[in-house]
C-alpha cells in the first residue's frame, strides 16, 4: 500500500492531474501562476527529492530562459518599447512579461507531468482506460510486459551474433546499422512465432468468453469519494471563474491585471502602461479554490505525515 496521494484510487489521481494541467494552462493571472508554480515545485520535491532540484536547475530553468528570449526577440506586439535590438526590432515590456508568463506556465505544466509520472503508474492508467477501450488496453498491457522481455532477448541475440563475429559494438556506421538490423530481424522471427503461441494459450484458457471479468487491484474507498467530490466541486467553481473572467488578465496591447471594476482603487504605472484593477469578490473565491486545488496532494501528504508522527509518538 502506497502512502499519500499515490495510495488513492486511479480515478481521483487522473481527474486531479487532468484538471490541474488544464487550469494551469487556462489561468494566466500572476497570482495563480505563482501559486501553481509553488505548489508544483513543492510536490515535485516531495516526490522526487534531490533529483527534482537537479532537474529544475538543469532542464526547466534553461527552458524558461529560452521561452523568454524567443518571445522578447521575435514578438511584435506591445506598446511600451524598452530598448531597440540591433535588428531594428523593438523589445517591448509586454512581450517580455508575457514571455515570462508563458515560460513559467510551461515549466509548471512540465513539473505537474513529472509528478504525474511518479503518481500515475502504467497499471493505474490501464485500470481506468481498460474500462472504455478493453482491446486497446489489452494490447497496451501485453506490450508493456513484452518490452523488457524483448530487450532481454535482444541482448541474448546480440551476444550470440558477437560470438560468430558480427560485433555490434565496432565497425563503420553502415556495418553497425546492418548488424543492428540483423539482430532486430532475428528478434521478429522469434517473437512473432511466440506471440501466436501465447494467443493460442489464451484462447485455450477461455479468453474472450462471455462473463469473464478483468482483475482489478484497486479498491474504491471513502477517501477516494471525498477526493473526487472535492476536485469536481473546485473544477465547477473554476469553470465559472473562467466563463465570468473573474481572474482575467490582458497582456496585449498593454497589461491590464484583473477586469475593470466599479469598486476599490485602480493603480496605473504610466511608464509601463500597466493597469492594476482591484480583485472582485468572486475573483477571490476563484483564487482560493485554485490554491486548494494546487495544494491538494500536498495537504493529503502532510495530513498522513502528521498522523504517522502522532502514532509514532504514542508508542
Amino acid at each position, binding site marked *: 500500500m502506497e502512502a499519500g496521494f499515490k495510495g488513492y484510487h486511479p480515478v481521483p489521481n487522473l481527474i486531479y492531474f487532468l484538471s490541474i494541467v488544464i487550469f494551469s494552462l487556462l489561468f494566466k493571472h500572476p497570482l495563480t501562476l505563482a501559486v501553481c508554480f509553488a505548489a508544483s515545485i513543492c510536490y515535485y520535491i516531495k516526490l522526487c527529492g534531490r533529483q527534482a532540484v537537479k532537474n529544475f536547475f538543469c532542464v526547466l530553468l534553461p527552458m524558461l530562459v529560452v521561452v523568454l528570449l524567443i518571445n522578447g526577440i521575435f514578438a511584435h506586439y506591445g506598446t511600451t518599447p524598452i530598448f531597440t535590438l540591433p535588428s531594428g526590432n523593438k523589445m517591448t515590456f509586454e512581450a517580455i512579461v508575457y514571455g515570462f508568463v508563458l515560460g513559467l506556465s*510551461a515549466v509548471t505544466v*512540465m513539473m505537474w*507531468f513529472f509528478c504525474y509520472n511518479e503518481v500515475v503508474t502504467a497499471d493505474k492508467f490501464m485500470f481506468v482506460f481498460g474500462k472504455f477501450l478493453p482491446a*486497446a488496453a489489452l494490447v497496451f498491457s*501485453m506490450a508493456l510486459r513484452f518490452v523488457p522481455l*524483448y530487450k532481454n532477448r535482444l541482448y541474448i541475440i546480440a551476444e550470440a551474433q558477437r560470438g560468430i563475429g558480427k560485433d555490434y559494438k565496432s565497425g563503420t556506421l553502415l556495418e553497425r546499422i546492418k548488424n543492428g538490423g540483423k539482430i532486430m530481424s532475428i528478434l521478429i522471427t522469434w517473437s*512473432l512465432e511466440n506471440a*501466436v503461441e501465447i*494467443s493460442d494459450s489464451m484462447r485455450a484458457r477461455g479468453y474472450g468468453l462471455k462473463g469473464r471479468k478483468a482483475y482489478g487491484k484497486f479498491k474504491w474507498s471513502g477517501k477516494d469519494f471525498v477526493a473526487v467530490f472535492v476536485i469536481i466541486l473546485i473544477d465547477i467553481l473554476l469553470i465559472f471563474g473562467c466563463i465570468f473572467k473573474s481572474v482575467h488578465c490582458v497582456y496585449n496591447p498593454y497589461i491590464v491585471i484583473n477586469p475593470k471594476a466599479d469598486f476599490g482603487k485602480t493603480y496605473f504605472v504610466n511608464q509601463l502602461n500597466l493597469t492594476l484593477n482591484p480583485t472582485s469578490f468572486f475573483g477571490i473565491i476563484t483564487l482560493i479554490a485554485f490554491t486548494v486545488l494546487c495544494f491538494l496532494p500536498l495537504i493529503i501528504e502532510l495530513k498522513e505525515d502528521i498522523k504517522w508522527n502522532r502514532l509514532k509518538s504514542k508508542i
Partner: protein
Amino acid sequence: MLKRKIFSIIMLCVAVPAVVFAGYFLAKGKQYYLVSLLVIFLSIFPFFYSLERKKLQTRELVITASVTAIAVASRAAFFYLPNIKPMCAVLVISAVVFGAEFGFVCGAISMLLSNFIYGQGMWTPFQMLAMGLTVFVITLIIRAFKIKNRFVAGIVSGIICTLLYGVIVDLCSVFMMVSDFNLKSILAVYSSGVPFNIMHGAATALIVAFFMPSITEKLQRIKIKYGIFNEKNQHSS
C-alpha cells in the same frame, strides 16, 4: 464495417473543424495548446474505436502487442548508435504487411508506451498522433503506388517521416513557447528541431531500405500461415 467507416469520416470531417472553430471563438485564439489537444483526441479516437468494434482474433491482438513492443524495444538493438531510432521503420515495414490502420494503432500505442518508460509530458499526445499518422500515410503511399523497390520505399518513408513527424511534434513546442505567431518566431522554434528530425528521417530511410525485404518476408509468412489480418474474412473469428 460501413457504419464504422461513416462514423470515422463524420468524426474527422465534422468534429475536428467544429472543435477548432469553437476553440478559436470561445478562447479568442489564445488557447492553442488545449484546442490542439482536443483535435488530437478526436483524430486518434476513430482508430481506437474501430479496434474495439472490429472483434479482432486473439492472435491479431497479440501480434499487435508484439509488433508494438518490438518497435519500442528495437531501440536497444542500436544501443551503440544512440541517434538511430528504428521505431518508425519497424512500424512502417509491419504496417505495409498488416494494414495501415494497424500501423496507426501500433504507432500511437508504442509512443504512449515508450513515454511510460522515458517519462510522460505534454508532448505525449502530439507524439502519439505524429507517429500514428506518419506510419499510416507512408503505408498508404507504399500500398497505393505498389512500391516494390526497397530504396524507393526507403526514400519515401524517410522524407515523410522527417516532414510529418517533425512538423507535428514540434508544433507542441510552438504552442507552448510562442505567443506572437509570426514567421520568424515559429521558424526559430522549428529550426532547433531540424537536426533531430533529419537524423530520425535518415535512420528510418536506411533501415527501411536495408531490411524491408527480409522482414517483410517473415511477416508475410506469419500472415499466411496463421491467416491473420486478412482483409477478406475479418469477421470470421
